[in-house]
């Protein structure tokens, strides 16, 4: 993964394949444009339970329950949703329950919508303050390998890890 991509290649196809390889069985999300293709692939996959949330902190708690029950899951969230998760993340830290989160950025590279900027600029500091390990990635070809590394750190070393996917990759928010 990660080189000689065809013109129609999108990182979500490799990440979805990686989810299968890793045995991911639950995916929780609040919809987001930057993650839409990955969410669609997961929804179309009968071996992954896709759960739409009303707020992202629900997904943190769901991932704790999934791990207690012997399954691995992934939380998919826009950067704005990170702010909704902070208190619930204490459960993962205190119990050392693995968390793998994919965070698509807004309020960052080339943002044209000013109301996205405050939370976008707070996203990484907030994750780090909540003791979530952050892997930032700003090239599409590097997303799959970054998710793979984050998954190992999460599930094999029992840590909360977020892959923060730059707005440079999604191009979201480029028009006001």
């Amino acid at each position, binding site marked *: 993964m990660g080189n000689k991509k065809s013109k129609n290649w999108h990182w979500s196809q490799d990440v979805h394949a990686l989810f299968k390889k890793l045995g991911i069985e639950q995916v929780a999300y609040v919809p987001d444009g930057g993650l839409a293709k990955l969410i669609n692939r997961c929804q179309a996959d009968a071996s992954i339970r896709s759960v739409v949330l009303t707020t992202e902190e629900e997904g943190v708690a*769901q991932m*704790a329950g999934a*791990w207690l029950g012997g399954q691995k899951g992934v939380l998919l969230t826009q950067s704005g949703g990170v702010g909704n998760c902070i208190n619930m993340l204490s459960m993962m830290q205190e119990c050392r329950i693995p968390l793998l989160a994919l965070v698509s950025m807004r309020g960052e590279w080339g943002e044209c919508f000013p109301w996205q900027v405050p939370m976008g600029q707070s996203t990484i500091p907030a994750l780090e303050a909540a003791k979530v390990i952050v892997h930032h990635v700003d090239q599409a070809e590097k997303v799959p390998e970054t998710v793979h590394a984050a998954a190992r750190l999460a599930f094999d070393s029992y840590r909360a890890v977020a892959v923060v996917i730059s707005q440079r990759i999604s191009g979201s928010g480029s028009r006001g």
Partner: protein
Amino acid sequence: MASRRKITLDRRKVVEKILKDRGDILLVTGLGAPTWDAAAVGDHPNNFYLWGGMGGAVLTGLGLALAQPKRRVLVITGDGEMLMGVGGLATVAVQKPSNLAICIMDNQRYGETGMQETHTEHGVDLAAMAAGAGFQKYSTVYNNRELAEAIPVLYSEQGPVFVDVKVTDAPQPMTLPPRDGPMLKHRFRENLLGHV
């Protein structure tokens, strides 16, 4: 608005009746008094107590129920904790986990912070909110007759089911279960999965 009926049930006795014949259910308790209630009945490796993460009990139950579709999962939490994560009722209703039961010890108070009134004291009806989310089985329990009808629902009706039990705000002795997070997690997983 909920009807104004007299509240007489004692939460410790209610939880004792619910857990008396618990079989192999997996129990998640919300922070505060529901955790002490479950501990007062007896600590158990199939109990996972939330000591924090307010608002997360129902969704912890959902993740567990989806992961263990052959096991009954019971969430016992308080009205304040449920209100903080009330959107989770919509999330659960959409997923329709047939093995998930939610039971609220509704004393209409924030018990851990000085017994301040919650929204349910002012008529907010949690069972009606579950019904509005799409739960097919929901009820509010005020007395032992209604409790006797509700307990089999929690254990064997097709889920998700929601039971709001109105309990008095009488103070109870604090009974503390283990609170070390990794220990609780390892114990639960080892008993359920055979490995940590």
